[in-house]
């Protein structure tokens, strides 16, 4: 199958290569030279990895919580069929039409101490920079996840709500006992996409904070980029990258397990 070969060549093979390269020393020119465990030792010895990993996990978790709550509520709300909701959801969708690069540039300008709408040096403080990245990521991707939840909420059969309403369940009771459990699969899909997506906050970090202040927002992908394409230490960058693959895979396996979701079968079970 040409499709499988293509994927293997451009996505799976590089992963193996990254692992191999992590045992070499290579400056991007000439050929890689074997370096044994030096890169891995460096990775685990300096505090940078621990810091990056902490920031990455924290950013992923906070973004996930923020985006899930907002897009779940908006999505369920927008699933109703009122006219003004359709118009509002159309407006809500607008941020998603800009590329991450454009959005990062926009917020970089809006957070500029000399120009922007928020006074003070937001991006200069550790918490400010972190929250800015979470917010900007949410601003961009919440429209997309809202849409996913809207689709999910529309698939919940009306009978369930009607039956519960007759049994005397109020709006909030229905939300917690019917809507939420029925959206479990939707939440998993959207959650996996959010977790993988938050690793692609690379351009947001690059443009908004450059990993700063100091290295306080240097998430793993940014650390990898700096090591490789700024310091030309590709061996070390590959070690960071291999670590990233392991972390990302572990994270999604965990997520899939936790939600008891398996190989995407039986979307309708339990109905």
């Amino acid at each position: 199958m040409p499709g499988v070969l293509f994927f293997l060549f451009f996505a799976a093979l590089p992963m193996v290569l990254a692992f191999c390269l992590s045992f070499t020393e290579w400056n991007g020119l000439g050929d890689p030279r074997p370096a044994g465990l030096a890169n891995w030792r460096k990775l685990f010895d300096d505090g940078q990895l621990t810091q990056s990993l902490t920031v990455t996990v924290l950013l992923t978790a906070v973004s996930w919580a923020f985006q899930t709550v907002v897009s779940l509520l908006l999505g369920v709300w927008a699933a109703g069929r009122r006219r003004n909701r359709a118009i509002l959801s159309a407006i809500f969708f607008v941020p998603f039409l800009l590329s991450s690069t454009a959005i990062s540039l926009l917020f970089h300008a809006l957070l500029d101490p000399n120009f922007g709408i928020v006074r003070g040096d937001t991006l200069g403080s550790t918490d400010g920079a972190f929250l800015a990245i979470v917010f900007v990521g949410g601003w961009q991707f919440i429209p997309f996840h809202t849409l996913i939840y809207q689709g999910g909420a529309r698939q919940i059969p009306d009978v369930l709500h009607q039956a519960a309403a007759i049994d005397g369940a109020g709006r909030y009771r229905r939300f917690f006992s019917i809507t939420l459990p029925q959206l479990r699969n939707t939440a998993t899909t959207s959650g996996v996409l959010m977790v993988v997506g938050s690793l692609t906050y690379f351009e947001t970090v690059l443009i908004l904070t450059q990993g700063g202040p100091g290295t306080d927002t240097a998430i793993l992908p940014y650390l990898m980029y700096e090591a490789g394409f700024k310091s030309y230490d590709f061996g070390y960058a590959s070690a960071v990258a291999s670590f990233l693959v392991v972390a990302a895979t572990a994270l999604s396996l965990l997520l899939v397990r936790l939600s008891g979701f398996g190989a995407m079968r039986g979307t309708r079970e339990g109905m």
Partner: protein
Amino acid sequence: MQTGAAPAARPDGRRRHWTRRPNPLAGLGSAVWLVVVLVPVYAMITASLTPRDEALGHNALKPPAHPTLANYSTVLHSGFFHYLGNTVLAAVAVVALVLVLCVPLAYVAVRTRGFWSGAAFRLFLLGVAIPAQAVVVPLYLMIAKLNLYDSLLAIVLPTAAFAMPVAILVLTGSLRDISEEVYEAMALDGASPLRMLFQLVIPMAKGGISTVGIYSALQAWNGFLFPLIFTQSEGPRVLTLGLFTYVSQFGVDIPALLASVVLSGIPVFAVYLVARRALVGGLMGVGGK
């Protein structure tokens, strides 16, 4: 369920509207989000109309005293259309590549139950989790060895590869919806697998196919890392990277920078206005299965 009575039992005749009673809390929440969405957009547009000399120390929420389009013409004369053209070209190539590779693959994955098709499917399932960042270093090495460095192909090939896992998931989902009997009926009529693919699978899976098309087009449109690392010169520069280079070119000229951001949004916005239904419906499908 205790009540066996029909919902019509309600005396006020409002049973059909039980979902439609106003919900003040939800209304308030969505109004707040509306502000969150619109304020940056508004600030961006007013700022992009502000003359350069008014910009410093200017409050972005205030409309400019002397609005101007000068910032836009600056951007349009700085290679904007060239970058846009490259992005469109790359997006078309990525979509074509993904569809040509993934539709037959999903077809095989759904129709055959061998070890290899199962293994391939699981490979792609795992592939959803691979962040592109993790493999750029070796990809950089491979692209250089293939003599593709600094060409549009260097962007297109890996972008397509990384759009494949989600494409496969969506496509297998929509192909599973085609019932077994239709295949059997066609097989009885003596249709070859290839003919089934073109006359049955592709027409029936139109929804999934358009979702995948939209999704991979967005990946290409949004792509930044691959262009940043695999291209260098003006020739193959795509729009996202063009915007990034404007940062150094315009420096502190924030109005011009924001004008470039506005301009970059216009093409997708136009597509959105024309094809809203397909776009929104398609993306809803990503989470559906």
